[in-house]
């Protein structure tokens, strides 16, 4: 090998504390180094040209650049050496800026350290081999998991982009949390009026295949070629026949089914269409409360159904879909307020969540849009809102801010005063977080125009006294205790990761944080990508989000998918693991530990061997450190390459 070493001054960034010329001189003494020089700005156009020229003129077969972090410019230089006709992997970087010149001023020590880092890079490069990507076909269909507003947006954008979409939703209708809202902040426009048309678009779009009452069972394959198994739950109603007429609901004698859509405020019929604007508008039987299932006789719905759609024998089905990309848009759940004993939720019927209150406000809700106390149906006159319930609370393991509670509480304060003009509204808050467009103005309106009384402080306790509730808290601005006699207490319950999110993440082979929210690839620069190629995130599954952010992320994820699908062939990263079949003894330890299921057992002349599925492997190298025979080797980070670096440091 003929190696060229380029030591960068980076202006004075490196040269200021490192004698780059001395580093270059020392590098000339390293094995197989044919050329070593220092340069002002290696990454600049002339700098790159110098590398290209040196490769051509001096017949170099490998390049080391000692400059900034490879996380900064590795790709820049790889492209440069490629322009000169070398393989992009015949290149190494020594990070002498972030790891040397910027962290100390001792020029002697820095120069020495920089020289050693160059030696390491040279020793590694000597063991590098050209690596080549594979090309493979892309299935241009996308799976969107979750039919909330983020999923709907992502599905519509992809469909509009001409790609087929499979949209799966766990509930019987899409719409998600937004469908449950009465109005939205800061415009106070009707939530279902703006979401409804989008839901209809989903139902009618020729490119969208909507699967409600369906969950993800398993994911196999890799970017461009996922095989997805979907579990379609038994609805006991044949949806191809159901017209959504609702006669079954009218006649159903069992009215004890929990009303999930209305956040369990009241009950509903065992056969049910959750809300009038449901998409698909199809009935579902809840076998937990249906008399047919509980007692073995009833059959009223089957009798009244004009299309004969009822099918008590229906079984769960497993469907298989081929897709090239997956968007997870599984949303969030509301914090379980009964976990806070001092507020008495669960014991006191009139201590409710904001989302339950939203249903009380909604004209399609259980009270027809009239605010009534769940306990006695009376109209409350004094309503206390408590913010940050299950948010920003380390003791509950919920240290994060849910982000949208300040805003919806202000909205609900305003709506309360609209609905019951003679009501008194109190809001306990820690800080008002309203950084969005028109947001702060909106909270001000709640206080100033609508007379909501904002009290800065936490609520210590809620307890009943007669038919009222005493809300005891602190007013930290006045430095006093306050006690308010309330008719209704609304807790602004924070967002938490949707139930089952970690399990889903494991199926999708993506990371999740300690709270169960999915982790994006980069918090700033890759907010909708995950570390698994081909899997994207939209909406609150990544962290609590309000509607505009969710919609924006839905569109962003769709854009990523469309960009991915704009190529007919994808290239795999060649920095993946390979198994030397001659060394492999087929013990299967790599298969056990691979987080991607990227290694499979094969039969080679009657002997078990491991084989890496190149397109699934993400290049973590766990198999390499697991394989005792050194048969599995991660290309570009092989045992020999790392040993060369260790030896470069320890032998001298």
């Amino acid at each position, binding site marked *: 090998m003929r190696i060229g070493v380029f030591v960068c001054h980076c202006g004075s960034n490196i040269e200021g504390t490192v004698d780059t010329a001395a580093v270059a001189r020392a590098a000339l003494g390293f094995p197989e180094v044919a050329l070593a020089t220092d340069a002002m700005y290696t990454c600049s156009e002339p700098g790159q040209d110098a590398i290209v020229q040196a490769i051509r003129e001096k017949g170099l077969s490998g390049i080391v650049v000692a400059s900034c*972090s490879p*996380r*900064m410019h590795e790709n820049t230089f790889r492209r440069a050496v490629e322009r000169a006709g070398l393989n992009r992997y015949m290149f190494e970087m020594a*990070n002498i*800026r*972030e*790891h*040397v010149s*910027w*962290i*100390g*001023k*001792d020029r002697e*020590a*820095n120069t*020495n350290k920089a*020289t*050693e*880092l160059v*030696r*390491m890079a040279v020793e590694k490069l000597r063991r590098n081999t050209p690596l080549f990507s594979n090309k493979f076909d892309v299935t241009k269909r996308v799976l969107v998991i979750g039919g909330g507003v983020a999923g709907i947006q992502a599905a519509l954008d992809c469909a509009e982009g001409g790609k087929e979409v499979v949209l799966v939703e766990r509930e019987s209708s899409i719409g998600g949390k937004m469908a449950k809202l009465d109005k939205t902040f800061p415009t106070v426009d009707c939530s279902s009026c703006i979401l409804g048309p989008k839901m209809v678009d989903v139902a009618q779009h020729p490119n969208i295949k909507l699967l409600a009452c369906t969950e993800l069972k398993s994911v196999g394959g890799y970017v461009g070629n996922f095989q997805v198994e979907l579990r379609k739950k038994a609805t006991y109603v044949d949806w191809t026949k159901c017209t959504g007429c609702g006669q079954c609901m009218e006649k159903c004698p069992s009215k004890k089914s929990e009303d999930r859509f209305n956040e369990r405020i009241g009950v509903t019929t065992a056969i049910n269409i959750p809300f009038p604007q449901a998409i698909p508008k199809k009935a579902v039987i809840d076998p937990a409360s249906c008399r047919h299932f509980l007692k073995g006789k009833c059959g009223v719905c089957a009798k009244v159904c004009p299309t004969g759609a009822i099918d008590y024998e229906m079984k769960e089905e497993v469907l298989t879909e081929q897709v090239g990309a997956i968007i997870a848009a599984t949303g969030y759940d509301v914090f379980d307020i009964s976990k806070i004993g001092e507020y008495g939720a669960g014991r006191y019927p009139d201590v409710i969540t904001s989302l339950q209150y939203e249903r009380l406000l909604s004209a399609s809700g259980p009270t027809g849009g009239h605010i009534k106390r769940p306990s006695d149906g009376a109209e409350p006159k004094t309503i206390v809102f408590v913010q940050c319930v299950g948010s920003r609370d380390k003791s509950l393991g919920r240290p994060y801010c849910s982000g949208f509670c300040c805003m919806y509480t202000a909205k609900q304060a305003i709506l309360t005063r609209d609905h019951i003009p003679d009501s008194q509204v109190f809001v306990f808050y820690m800080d008002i977080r309203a950084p969005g467009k028109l947001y702060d103005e909106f909270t001000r309106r709640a206080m100033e125009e609508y007379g909501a009384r904002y009290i800065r402080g936490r609520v210590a306790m809620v307890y009943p006294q007669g038919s009222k509730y005493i809300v005891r808290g602190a007013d930290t601005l006045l430095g006093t205790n306050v006690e308010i006699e309330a008719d209704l207490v609304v807790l602004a319950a924070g967002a938490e990761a949707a139930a089952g999110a970690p399990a889903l*993440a494991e199926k999708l*082979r993506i*990371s999740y*944080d300690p709270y169960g929210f999915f982790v994006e690839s980069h*918090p700033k620069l890759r907010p909708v990508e995950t*570390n698994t190629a081909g899997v994207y995130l939209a909406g609150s599954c990544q962290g609590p989000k309000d509607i505009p952010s969710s919609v924006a992320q839905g569109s962003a994820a769709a854009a990523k998918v469309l960009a991915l699908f704009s190529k007919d062939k994808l290239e795999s990263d060649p*920095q993946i693991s390979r198994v030397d079949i001659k*060394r*492999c*003894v087929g*013990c*299967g*330890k790599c298969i*056990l*530990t691979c*987080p*991607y299921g990227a290694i499979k057992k094969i039969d080679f002349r009657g002997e078990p061997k491991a084989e890496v599925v190149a397109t699934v492997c993400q*290049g*973590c*190298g*766990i198999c390499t*450190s*697991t394989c005792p*025979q*050194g048969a599995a080797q*991660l290309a570009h*980070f*092989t*045992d*020999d390459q*790392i*040993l060369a*670096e*260790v*030896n470069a*440091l*320890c*032998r*001298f």
Partner: protein
Amino acid sequence: MSVLTGKELRIVGFLCNWCSYGGADTAGVGRFVQPTDLRIIRVPCSGRIDPLFIVKALLNGADGVLVSGCHPRDCHYSQGNFYARRRLEVLKHFLPVLGIDPARFEYTWVSASEAQRWQKVVSSFTERIHKLGPASRLENTALPDGLEKRFAAIASGELPSDGKAATRLEELKDRIHEFLPDLDIVIGWQRGFDALHNTPLFMRSAEDLEKLVWGPLNIHNTATYLPSLRGKKVGVVVKGCDSRSVVELLQEKLVDRENIVVFGMPCSGIVDLSKIDRALRERGTGIGRVQAAECGEKGVTIKAGGQEYRFAMEEVAADKCFHCEYPNAVLADHLIGNASPSSSNGKISRQLAAFDAMSLQERMAYWRSQMDRCIRCHACRNACPLCVCKDHCIAQSRDPHWISQEDTITEKLMFQVVHAVHTAGRCTECGECERACPMDIPILAMKRQMNRAIRELFEYKAGTDPEAVPPLLAFQAEEKNIHEGVL
């Protein structure tokens, strides 16, 4: 060119690309001043870091090794640091047995945004290494006097017992006889070249069965042969310890349950031929001159050079048999009786106790003196029932090139570390490595130390549950007994 003498020490860092390398970059961007000793090797993931890289560095000149990866749950590859955490923690527990101060190795988690934290990690680790000073080198250590005596002073313990050992053989033969027609081979033991040396027996016919013997001279682990006989129907006679190897092989799917038939024999301890040799030499003769030997309940009676010598089992039993928890097969298709286990009380072996009593310096010197004898025959490895790589062991490979042909003590010791690390969480402490060693090098100590770590960290014993996954091939998001992150 090297570290700046007097100013720096040799500190090697292994950082994952996604979090910690980024964190170090961020620290640079933020101009967080750090000591200059550390040299960083970039790897994709902390899960890529083979603990052997760290030992390699520490044995070959590093004064300290620092590993840093993504915080648990933040791994770019979702699970890499979970595996790394287990493996690195185990290594930390293992290093002292080599005489390497575990404080010279640390692993921690730093995210790409934690510049300040990175600065603190580098500074405090560098400071720690400077406090420790340059590491002592294997080649430069000298053995203190009287170490052997200290070894000998440590008491052993209780042996398992089986009062009916004498009558078991016939029952075993009957049972094998019954199943032999359906089996290709049954592995047992027979008398070897002299009265003290038994040797593994491969029975193919009823005639072979007559050669079968039972007793404390059946020192070999019959499970060792199973992986190489895969595909055949094999019967195997096992002692309790052998059965744990069978279980471990099943755990790792290296043998097929349906193809093996296990005959479990209750064991009341086996002899250590080296101990007998030593005892005979003290009496002026040697194991090579043994004319007859008889093993009874009370011990071993040996005739050599016309004289008779009696040894109680306690004098000549293998160390592993003291406090034996599993004198009966933990898994058997045919269990020929039961022995009563000795009380284990969680006591550690004599060997480990002796190591614990040594200073780190002494341990290193001890290995230097012991490994010097190693002839690199790899009998330790080939006798190990779990060394399934055998023909493809990295000790003899040029690619990857972990170990050279130079017969330095460092290279020889490195191989033993490879063996210990590769069997970590898998080793059942059957002791075959040490028993097989023709030079009597006490290499089992390394595995014992490793197993102690595995027990403490994962409350796990290899080869006791066929369904269990070896702990280093698994992880928990929250590790009960690992409390990392001291930096």
